[in-house]
């Protein structure tokens, strides 16, 4: 390579490198150092301490937050992907109805978070919510249920709304993947004597495995980063019963000004996400290789 070419090459990638440094590495570094800094009332008081992490460990709410976050991320992802797979498989069938549904199903996905959250908040309202009233008037329940007020229920209600909101895109991606499965493989399986379930299990699933793992990891990342929905619907309440990482970080930093503790939580969050992505890359390492060799 000519010397001038090398300069040109570096010059061309410089803007991207600068942007990544400024907007990704910089803030991450900042948060990481902040998590190791003692902060009192918004004032930095000394670097090089693990006090923030110790404080989290001692915080009785943090245990609950971890449990809620597990429900939120694992439950949400699992439901999103499994419901999405079912819906996607249905949408993959060719008919007029599914043609329309494929377009309609994106509706929850295009609504702004705030609108979704407010609409569901009112629908699930303890006294005036339409869902509770319908259940009561049809005699399915005695009296209305306080969906958002019941600490045992609230986390799962959030997950339901989350699935409603995030599942459509998962379903569409999987629908596209299922439709891309070669017809002749499915037909060969029919000739080999496979029934519908066996065809799905032995032909469709292996063919969409790549999309399935990708969409699982992507949903996990989306759900981990989702903040507006739980914050607007419950604000972490009642009594931290629906407090998750995202909302607790927000509360610690912008309501209690515990920057240090919030940063410590962010670091934990980041480590979690990185592990998920690493797991994904590890699981898919063979697929990458085989895709490349095709």
């Amino acid at each position: 390579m000519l010397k001038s070419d090398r300069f040109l090459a570096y010059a061309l990638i410089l803007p991207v490198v600068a942007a990544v440094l400024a907007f990704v590495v910089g803030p991450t570094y900042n948060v990481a150092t902040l998590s190791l800094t003692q902060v009192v009332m918004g004032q930095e008081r000394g670097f090089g301490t693990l006090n923030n992490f110790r404080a989290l460990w001692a915080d009785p709410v943090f245990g609950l937050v971890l449990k809620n976050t597990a429900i939120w991320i694992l439950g949400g992802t699992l439901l999103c992907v499994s419901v999405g797979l079912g819906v996607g498989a249905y949408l993959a069938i060719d008919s007029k109805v599914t043609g329309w549904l494929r377009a309609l199903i994106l509706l929850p996905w295009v609504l702004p978070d705030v609108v979704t959250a407010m609409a569901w908040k009112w629908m699930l309202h303890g006294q005036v919510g339409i869902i509770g009233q319908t259940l009561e008037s049809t005699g399915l329940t005695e009296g209305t249920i306080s969906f958002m007020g019941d600490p045992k229920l609230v986390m799962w209600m959030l997950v339901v709304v989350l699935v409603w909101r995030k599942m459509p895109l998962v379903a569409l991606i999987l629908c596209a993947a299922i439709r891309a499965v070669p017809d002749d493989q499915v037909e060969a399986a029919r000739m080999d004597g496979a029934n519908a379930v066996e065809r799905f299990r032995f032909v469709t699933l292996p063919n969409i495995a790549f999309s399935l793992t990708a969409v699982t990891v992507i949903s996990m990342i989306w759900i981990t980063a989702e903040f507006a929905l739980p914050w607007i619907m419950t604000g972490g309440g009642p009594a931290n019963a629906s407090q998750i990482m995202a909302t607790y970080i927000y509360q610690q930093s912008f309501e209690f000004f515990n920057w240090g503790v919030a940063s410590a939580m962010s670091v934990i969050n980041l480590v979690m996400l990185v592990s998920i992505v690493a797991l994904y890359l590890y699981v898919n390492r063979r697929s990458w290789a085989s895709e490349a060799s095709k």
Partner: protein
Amino acid sequence: MGSVTLRNIRKSYGAVEVLHGIDLDIKDGEFTVLVGPSGCGKSTLLRSIAGLETISDGEISVDDTVINTLVPKERDIAMVFQNYALYPHMTVAKNMGFSLRLAKESQEEIDKKVKAAAEILDLNALLDRYPRQLSGGQRQRVAMGRAIVRDPKVFLFDEPLSNLDAKLRVQMRSEIKELHQRLKTTTIYVTHDQIEAMTMADKIVVMRGGHVEQIGSPIELYDNPASVFVAGFIGSPAMNFIDAVGDGKALKTTTQELLGTPNATVASGQKVIAGFRPEDIRLAEKGIAAKVALIEPTGAETQLTLRTENEAIIMTTRDRITHSVGDQVFFEVIEGKLHCFDSETERSLAEGGQAQ
């Protein structure tokens, strides 16, 4: 045993009928080739026999059992697809044993049958490979192996060689034919390639526009085509056709040149289509005048394009040609090789030609 009987098979997509009542009898062990141009319904017919398509009317039976309401797995029919349709995530052995696995046979039994099939197809060394690690020809053999392990009553092939390069196609053609001679399983084979049909078939079914044009052995179809379509489709280069008029027992061209005596009785003045194969004409001292327009040597044979007043006639000869382009020549049709078709219906006027 595996004799196949089709009775009045009809298939419609909405208002469009693509198969207009197909009747066909296939004897046990016969190698039958369905041939025709794209869109003639040959693949649809094959897929109907397989059970991948439902038919609108008619009856399909295998060994006197009506199967058209059965799902594919109950029909005891195996199919080889054009694009091989191997399961990419399974090894060759798994691919071949998949149907047995679904049928809940023991692993021992599966291994035994897969090994036996692999032996036949020379796939033993490849059993642990994945389809993506195989060449086109090997994939096609695995697809055949998948059909063989089931030991079905009928094999169906849907244009299995069209994805292979020319040389491999010729090789696989003989492999499939050898395989059939060894296993003696009833085979129905779809192709648009008339050479494949001619070389492999015991019986050829020529289809066109959802109808059967003619059924017969390759030589029957070649020597006694029932219509202009069959005559033009079977054989390469294709048969020459020119408009002609009956004149006593003979046929004359529209410019009153004598063609010869046809294989049918024609009334004087009756307008017909005369047909003769490129190898059935020879250059002569007198006859029909033409100019040499093109000379294409292929080594063993030479193909000549002769231009008469109105037509271009293709002729092949094994003789060495001394003429050059532009020369005036005369040609004649060899006695007894002149075909004659009705100019309206395009059916053969020879005896039996109208029967189809």
